[in-house]
């Protein structure tokens, strides 16, 4: 037997908090927003969504440094409902 998903069934979604810092916050004129994404979304897909949905979103790089829940993250990490995604301009502490 094979199971075929009904393409009309809406896919589940997740909601994440996005935070922007320093130069990125200044470029986009905001430092926080909520984003709803498909439940399979990765960090990279969330960033692509921000770049396409936000006014002047294309000013963000396609592959910036990112952190999820206060920890550096690769772009292929899968997000979960309630995650906090942060886009980090090049780090310059010290």
């Amino acid at each position, binding site marked *: 037997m094979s199971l075929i998903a009904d393409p009309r069934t809406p896919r589940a979604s997740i909601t994440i908090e996005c935070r922007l810092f320093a*130069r990125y916050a200044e470029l986009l004129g905001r430092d926080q927003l909520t984003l709803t994404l498909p439940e399979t979304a990765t960090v990279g897909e969330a960033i692509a969504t921000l770049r396409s949905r936000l006014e002047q979103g294309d000013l963000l790089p396609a592959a910036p440094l990112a952190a999820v829940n206060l920890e550096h993250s690769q772009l292929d990490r899968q997000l979960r409902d309630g995650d906090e995604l942060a886009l980090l301009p090049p*780090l310059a502490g010290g």
Partner: protein
Amino acid sequence: MAALLAEVSAPERGGAVAFLGTVRRGPDDGPVTAIEYTAYEAMVVAEFDRIIEEARARWPEAGFAARHRLGAVPTGEASIGIVAAAPHRAQAFEAGRFLIEEAKRRLPVWKRERFDDGTAQWRDA
């Protein structure tokens, strides 16, 4: 710096290394009067805890302490201080170097240079 040293000093730790990073105005830096530091503060705390944990795994007998200033720091003043104390000097130097290099590489901190004409710009690295 005295407070940082006091946090890690112990009779069994015979060597302590202290590093201060200060706001620089080199010949190519332009008329910088101050650097304004901003941070993702909750992540700085979490990431620095991870760095300390890694350092403890490598130098279990050592002690570590650090501070990073935020806001405007005038040229010539310290922005970051790091101290590592260990039973012997070689471990203290190695651990201190590890802490400052990892802090610079991993902590989400950004700086904006302020110039003497009132303008400012973000600075990478």
